[in-house]
């Protein structure tokens, strides 16, 4: 009986037309896959806005690249695998715009990826599906130059001020 309201809420929550799987931790210079699974076969377009530090490698479905955006097209299919590579350490926000052209729905998803100097701790699956290159347009190299991002003073700075305040108070 207590489950009823929960089930009702679950029914009322709009269901996303696609399931995007992104590894949360990867190692620097390591290739990793973003897997997109659809609820059944459809025609779906995806646009991945790659931040500096993430590079496109290839995709299992046709793609096109413009500036730092990679567009993927799933036509009458139900999944796509997009392989990326992290060129430097950091915490990256990956914005994925999607449009389901059969259901007429669209939206944006945001995923975070942590790239550390050490290789990813996640055990590597032996049967990890790899994206077979189905390059749609020639020379699909991202035009965005890989420039080191400047760390903004944030947490460390605040901690230093707080420590200084405590020290001054004691003094």
């Amino acid at each position, binding site marked *: 009986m207590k489950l009823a309201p929960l089930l009702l809420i679950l029914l009322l929550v709009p269901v996303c037309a696609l399931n995007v799987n992104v590894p949360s931790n990867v190692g620097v210079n390591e290739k990793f896959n973003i897997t997109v699974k659809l609820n059944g076969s459809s*025609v779906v377009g995806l646009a991945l806005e790659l931040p500096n530090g993430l590079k496109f490698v290839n995709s299992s479905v046709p793609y096109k690249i413009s500036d730092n955006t990679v567009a993927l*097209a799933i036509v009458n299919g139900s999944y796509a695998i997009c392989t990326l590579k992290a060129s430097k350490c950091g915490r990256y926000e990956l914005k994925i715009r999607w449009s389901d052209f059969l259901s007429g729905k669209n939206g944006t998803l945001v995923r975070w990826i942590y790239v550390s100097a050490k290789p990813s701790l996640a055990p590597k699956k032996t049967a990890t599906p790899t994206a077979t290159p189905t390059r*749609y347009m020639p020379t699909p190299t991202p035009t965005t130059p890989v420039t080191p991002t400047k760390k903004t003073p944030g947490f460390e700075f605040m901690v230093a001020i707080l420590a200084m305040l405590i020290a001054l108070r004691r003094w």
Partner: protein
Amino acid sequence: MRRIILVLALLIFSVGLANASYMDLFKDGRITKAELTNAVLNYMLHKSNLSFEDVCDASYVYIYWHGKPKTIVDSANDTITIYRPVKRIVALSVDSAEALAILGAKNEVVGVSKYVKEEKRHFPVLSKLPSVGSCFSPNVEAIVELHPDIVITYVKWPDKSELEDKIKLVDPSIKVVRLDFYKASTLREEMEKLGYLLDKEENATKYVKWFDKWLNFVKSRIPEEKVKVYTCGKPLKAFGEGTGLYDLTVMAGGDNVLKGKKGYFDVDPEQVVLWAPQVIVSWCYAKGYSPEAKEIMKERFLQIVEFPGWEDVPAVKDGRVYVISSDIGSSPALPVGLVTVAKWLYPEKFKDVDPKEVMQEYVSEFLHLKFNVSEGCFAYPTW
């Protein structure tokens, strides 16, 4: 120099691709996977002239229509080709509005005939939509403002100069489809064609099966010895060959005294006496779903049975004068009209059939109305 020309040519080509319109997708007759993929990718990169709706439509056509446009030949013998799923329809006739309700396409209707608006019990949903005049006097401006994909009207009404020619000047993308939905000879095929055009084949098939069931049933019970029948509107307005009522009585197994005489015409009262019909069936445009229908039909009935000099006409003498509403005589409800007339002509052969039940089945199963047919009047004397 050559390099510059080559670069310019490539530039023009690539700009051309990006600026392709929806119809360009059909340049080679159908949307291919490569074309749709390109359209999706360009759209996602904001490098396309196609709107979200365009890509959705192209995807729909690719998946459900195998990339090809849909083509039918309508009842006016015009070839109609559509390149997108039909989402907005104007029904310029009552019969097409009823056909759309049967097909389950009420949600796609955006405008209706003024006569549909008057029939709130018959069309509780569609009567709330904007009026676009009538098939006799269409308001082209109102039609165009509704941005329909298609307009459905009768084969004869209105004249093409009043509809197609005027619409073409404002919005050539609007297609006019001429399907009658009231003639027994074309009704079945028309329902199938519209069902195909609107991707409502399943509902069209369900209707056609029901249509065939009653047509075959009546056909199987028509006796060898046929009854002489006279068909009219007002007592002296004969409904000859080619009219809906004439066809209905012939389909029901009647031997119509107007055989060989075409269309609507006036007759002498003496001629009716000479024909000596055993049954008279009169046509009435009273709206059968309305509570006033019974009185209007009764009035017509009395005009015939009390017609001076017709006391000895067998039909009048034997109490076999009937009035039928156009709602069942010439509309997608035609099988109901057929069963009704067949029972009037051969009451013994059809004593186990109740036309009222057939009508209730039609109203509930096909029009999806919560309407008790006893509240209306579709035949007089009433069922």
